[in-house]
């Protein structure tokens, strides 16, 4: 008999075949990471109930089975390969196989040149990801599949990585989007992710097989794939078992089952993983720790005894709702802390109603709300004021430690830390979308391992050998945990290890501190995650200072909001009345905004007759019906200026240019150059989501920055217009502006045309001109350029090129002069109107609204003027930097930072594209330059999709700090 064992990341599958290849036994179960134990059980069962001492040939497959098989000397076959063996035998006419597993996604092309593809290490759109999403929506997978059938709208959800998607889903939930729509959108995102990430330009057609758990169990996921592929795939019988079947078919080595069982069992007992000392050496240490933290207590009052004015604070966090009612002396009368189950509205409604009913003698004199759901709740319940989260937390922290100089809050989804300098919030650190080692991270793992979070945390406290898991994002952590378990770590060790990783993530990745002194000596920790004693202990150990954890650690945002409300109270609150609440209605409609080309998906929440709240919008238009175009926005001006370079008909016909990356700065140059030569210069349209998706399947590297990825869509847009000549030159060097040691472009800007050329098969019959061009050598340029152009257009004369080059350089200078003059005008106007000036710094291509997500407008809406770094960088002479200053665009950043250092009303906000390797260097240097002059540094990471909620927090905190 032959046995195939598929030990995957979340499940074990087993198949036993008789001599005629008939399945005589099969099993499928989740192993909750108890891999060796489950494997031993399974093998023992097989031995006793199925095999009855017959000779057995056995092969192991699956990602988690690899190490075990190796150590226990069992035959192993790689899982993708195994799938192919099974399909080849059972359904030989298959063209393409799509297989989703717990953590892997694979596509196998069988016909027309065999190729196998597997997701890279940064790609989460898999079973574990869908599990996480279900947890977030607070429904089971079955329910998710059921309700997805009734979807009306598909939202755009980042399909690249689970963590990203999470930060898209959360705001949707907070805006009140329907769960059925979100579920369907998640499935669509997974389908897109798999196809775009793995097909890499190759068409999926013919007979398509769907294999693996998620595709077997979720009919709507299959539907999403069918939709995306425009085909009907087949989910065959035994679709869960193909890897196991393949392993069984491939089995040709007879093994000693008894010995195998013993080996596997023994394997589990080798505690061979990297561990750190236990969190507590003994019980006494724990006792001391517990007592010390018990003393940080908030005063409490008895709500049934209290009379008169009280103040309500609500914190609508990403996964939880917190509310606190306080009396005149700041004493807590009542509070709740509850999971928002994806919709905070009914919870808050019941809570307020409950206060009205239970304590009629209490008069709510004022209310304030903070957190992700701020706007939604403010509109729903007519709450008096909204307050940015950082300010709320600072307000609360001061109550516990008046001279607090550092606050760290780790919530369910986000992490906020800030320094306090001279009584104002100074330096804010928020976790970027990529490193969300937060509360929901611990929760997801606890659930995966079959525990509730409090119990899971307790287990970690007394672990003997906490695992060292490093400090990275959830997707990576899954495999790290898997490996630790494989190496014999217990659940206790893993629980403690995960706490360590949350803390290390916060300290080294988000804050990037080298020592505790750097953070401050008076530290308040808060947020639900710090209720976990293990996390708290690790934090203190890592920093080497005792910290204060208020007993209302999870409620600090709400408490701060309540204190804030008290301060702002006029005596009469606008909060909804008891009667209104009793007849409270909440209805959600979804629609597309038609007011501009963005076509935002709007979620309209209607509360009774007079109140509504619109979510999902990127600008204020759908709310105010007015354009938000402020005249004090250089980004807008620049964009309009670039769009004024329109095609002019010419004798040599059309030449196309993709409107992305360095064309955002060099368009004036190239437009003039080619127009002069008699070409009609046609640019691709401004980026849109559709344009991006159209080119997505030709992107070879899924970790390159979003601006580069957009180029694929732009080139295709030109191809689809039938423009035969397309110009997109490679450029190692940029113009030397005299600000740095060299004047390079970054490798991606410099050579992306090569990637386009090598991966866009649609360019086959086009003339794609992507030669190496050096505009930095003004005198050599015409000579070299003439030689290049001659290859494609033999009739072009040198004299023409020479003249065109001269005009092009002039136009480039004129363009910059114009931009800088306009910038100076905006500065002058802003100063006259006493407005803050934000130097929104980044790269020229951050002008693209699809890349900057309207952050420029967000800033003007908050009342400040926006200019770009190139307006002020030219006002500074070259100066020494602590890094090698060798890129033209980046030299401007340092110069701008240097310039604004002594401009009181100017502040710098740096836009950083996710995946930009160069910015790992520039951000630290810009920060250093600013902080040397006591300026606040604000960084905003942007990607394909950006959570504008988090961006708003940063900006509002910045403005709040500037007000102080």
């Amino acid at each position, binding site marked *: 008999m032959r046995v195939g064992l598929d030990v995957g990341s979340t499940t074990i599958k087993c198949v036993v075949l008789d001599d005629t290849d008939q399945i005589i036994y099969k099993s499928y179960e989740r192993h909750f990471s108890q891999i060796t134990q489950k494997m031993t059980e399974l093998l023992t069962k097989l031995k006793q109930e199925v095999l009855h001492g017959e000779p057995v040939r056995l092969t192991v497959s699956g990602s988690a089975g690899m190490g075990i098989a190796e150590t226990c000397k069992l035959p192993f*076959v790689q899982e993708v390969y195994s799938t192919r063996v099974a399909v080849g035998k059972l359904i030989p006419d298959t063209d393409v196989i799509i297989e989703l597993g717990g953590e892997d996604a694979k596509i196998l092309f069988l016909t027309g040149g065999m190729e196998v593809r597997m997701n890279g290490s940064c790609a989460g759109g898999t079973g574990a990801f869908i599990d996480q999403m279900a947890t977030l929506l607070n429904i089971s997978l079955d329910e998710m599949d059921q309700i997805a059938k009734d979807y009306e709208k598909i939202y755009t959800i980042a399909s690249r990585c689970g963590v990203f998607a999470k930060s898209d889903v959360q705001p949707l939930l907070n805006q009140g989007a329907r769960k059925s729509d979100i579920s369907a959108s998640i499935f669509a995102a997974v389908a897109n992710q798999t196809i775009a990430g793995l097909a890499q330009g190759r068409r999926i057609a013919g007979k398509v097989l769907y294999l693996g758990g998620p595709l077997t169990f979720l009919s709507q996921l299959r539907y999403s794939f069918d939709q995306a592929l425009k085909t009907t795939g087949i989910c065959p019988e035994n679709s869960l078992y193909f890897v196991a079947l393949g392993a069984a078919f491939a089995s040709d080595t007879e093994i000693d089952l008894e010995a195998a069982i013993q080996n596997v069992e023994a394997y589990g007992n080798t505690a061979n993983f990297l561990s750190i000392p236990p969190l507590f050496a003994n019980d006494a240490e724990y006792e001391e720790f517990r007592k010390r933290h018990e003393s940080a207590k908030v005063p409490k009052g008895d709500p049934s005894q209290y009379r008169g004015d009280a103040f309500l604070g609500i914190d609508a966090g990403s996964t939880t709702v917190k509310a606190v009612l306080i009396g005149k002396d700041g004493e807590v009368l009542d509070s709740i802390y509850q999971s928002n189950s994806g919709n905070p509205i009914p919870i808050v409604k019941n809570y307020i109603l409950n206060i009205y009913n239970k304590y009629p003698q209490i008069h709510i004199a004022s209310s304030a709300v903070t957190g992700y759901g701020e706007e939604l709740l403010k509109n729903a319940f007519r709450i008096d004021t909204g307050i940015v989260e950082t300010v709320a937390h600072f307000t609360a922290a001061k109550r516990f430690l008046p001279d607090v100089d550092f606050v760290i809050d780790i919530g369910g989804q986000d992490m906020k830390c800030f320094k306090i300098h001279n009584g104002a919030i100074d330096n804010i650190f928020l976790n970027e979308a990529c490193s969300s080692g937060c509360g929901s991270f611990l929760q997801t793992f606890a659930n995966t391992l079959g525990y509730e979070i409090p119990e899971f945390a307790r287990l970690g406290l007394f672990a003997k050998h906490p695992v060292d898991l490093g400090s990275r994002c959830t997707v990576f952590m899954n495999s*790290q945990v*898997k490996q630790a378990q494989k190496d014999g770590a217990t659940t206790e060790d893993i629980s403690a290890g995960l706490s360590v990783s949350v803390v290390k993530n916060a300290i080294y990745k988000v804050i990037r501190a080298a020592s505790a002194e750097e953070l401050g000596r008076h530290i308040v920790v808060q947020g639900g995650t710090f209720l976990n004693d293990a996390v708290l202990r690790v934090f203190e150990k890592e920093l080497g200072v005792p910290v204060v954890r208020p007993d209302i650690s999870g409620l600090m945002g709400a408490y701060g909001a309540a204190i804030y409300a008290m301060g702002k109270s006029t005596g009469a609150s606008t909060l909804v009345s008891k009667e209104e609440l009793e007849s409270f209605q909440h209805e959600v409609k979804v629609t597309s905004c038609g007011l501009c080309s963005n076509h935002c998906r709007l979620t309209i929440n209607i509360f009774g007759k007079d109140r509504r709240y619109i979510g999902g919008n990127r600008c204020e238009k759908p709310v105010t019906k007015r354009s938000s175009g402020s005249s004090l926005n250089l980004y807008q001006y620049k964009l309009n200026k670039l769009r004024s370079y329109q095609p002019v008909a010419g004798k040599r016909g059309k030449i196309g240019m993709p409107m992305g990356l360095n064309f955002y700065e060099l368009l004036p140059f190239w437009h003039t150059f080619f127009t002069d030569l008699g070409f009609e210069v046609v640019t691709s349209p401004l980026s849109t989501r559709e344009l991006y998706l159209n080119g997505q399947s030709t992107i070879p590297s899924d970790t390159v920055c979003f601006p580069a990825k957009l180029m694929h869509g732009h080139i295709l847009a030109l191809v689809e217009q039938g423009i035969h000549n397309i110009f997109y030159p490679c450029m190692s060097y940029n113009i030397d502006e005299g600000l740095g040691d060299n004047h390079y472009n970054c490798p991606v800007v410099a050579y992306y045309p*090569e990637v386009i050329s090598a991966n866009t098969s649609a360019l086959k019959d086009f003339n794609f001109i992507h030669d190496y061009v050096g505009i930095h050598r003004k005198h050599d340029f015409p000579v070299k350029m003439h030689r290049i152009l001659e290859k494609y257009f033999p009739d072009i004369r040198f004299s023409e090129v020479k003249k065109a080059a001269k005009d092009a350089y002039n136009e480039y200078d004129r363009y910059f002069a114009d931009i800088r003059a306009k910038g100076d005008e905006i500065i002058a106007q802003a100063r006259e109107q006493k407005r803050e000036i934000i130097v929104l710094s980044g790269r020229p291509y951050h002008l693209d609204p699809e890349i900057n997500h309207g952050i420029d407008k967000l800033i003007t809406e908050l009342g400040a003027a926006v200019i770009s770094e190139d307006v002020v960088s030219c006002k500074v002479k070259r100066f020494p930097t602590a890094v090698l200053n060798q890129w033209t665009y980046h030299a401007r950043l340092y110069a701008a930072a240097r310039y604004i250092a002594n401009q009181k009303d100017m502040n710098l906000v740096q836009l950083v594209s996710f995946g930009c390797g160069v910015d790992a260097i520039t951000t630290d240097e810009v920060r250093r330059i600013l902080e040397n002059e006591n300026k606040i540094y604000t960084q905003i990471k942007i990607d394909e999709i950006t959570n504008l909620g988090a961006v708003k927090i940063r900006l509002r905190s910045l403005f709040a700090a500037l007000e102080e």
Partner: protein
Amino acid sequence: MAELKFNSKGRLLFTKEMKKEYTILCPSMAPVHFQLIVNVFNNCGYHFELLTNDGPNVVQEGLKYVHNDTCYPALLVIGQFMDALHSGKYDLDRTALVITQTGGGCRASNYIHLLRKALKKAGLPQIPVVSLNLSGLERNPGFSVTLPMLRKFLAALVYGDELVLLYNQTEAYEVNKGDSQKLVDRWIEDLTEQFNHGKGLSAREFNVNLRKIVKDFAKIPIHKVPKVKVGIVGEIYVKYSALGNNHLEDFLREQDCEVNVPGLMNFALFKVDNRLEDIKLYGGNPAKYAVCNLLMNYLLKLQNILIDAVKSEPKFLPPCPYAHTKSLVKGVIGYGSKMGEGWLLTAEMIELAEQGYENIVCAQPFGCLPNHIVGKGMVHRIKTVNPRSNIVPIDYDPSATRVNQENRIKLMLAVARENLVHGEND
């Protein structure tokens, strides 16, 4: 004791006194080459020490002192330095660090600045950092690469390339396990002894040594069986350093493969050639062109000696001449793409496939910018040039787990083994 001196920009200099008193720590990368190079420096009056510390603390130190989004090699190199400095083994007032600086348009040119930042952060500002470069980027009174030194340096590079090449071609098939390693060790010892006596570096001795090494390797008894042949290309540090690539070569050997890691000589040629290409593409100083051309020709001469030496035993596959490697990417990618490993990385993949090493691991640090272009970006096109190529790009970073990496490599190997069997049947 040597006094701390600074230049006008405030950079701590490595002085002549320091040359006498200080130990200069050198990070490890390609182990065979670096051992030889370190010996060359010691032969020239410096006290170099090659770092060999490994293990998780290196990564931890790196994470602590370097921006976590910076490339993995920077994190490891700096982590290895910090781990060494904190080990208590060195007198921190008599220790300097050396690091290479290429001056190219990639982030790697900034390693030295990141290292200085890290030293400052760790409270060790008194430790001088020496830049090893050929671009005249940072000068130090106590450290200069003279022409004779450069020659020795290049000779060491060639010896390194040869030893690695012959080791890889022999080890996979040796009858007595360990023969090849013993021979490599013996020759490193032998060459070091020669260097210490000022020998082994003249053109004649050089030629003699190279041929002797070939003869020695040819004597190792082997049993030639068909094996899966795997080439390794990638970002230079991750390609060569076991610390960077989770001991990739060892893993592949355990999987019963013959490994081919293209040598450093082509990389040196590539770097010099870039200067020529720049002038050809964009214009520039003819005098500079002539100087670079001279160096280029010298390097080519060395490479020829190496190729001829290896050819003296027909059982060995000699390295490709640079001109041939370069010709392979014509029409695939432009010679102007020079940042990082540039077009050379693409060329090496095509070359490996051409030489029968069509199974390729393209190793890169997670998010490496040049690799988006010349690595992953070119896989599709290489496949059209050589449909037999079976390439797997693998990302390395502090948290990428070995399980994931090895699983993907095993998939590549499964396909390779199938091709191997088919190949035999053809």
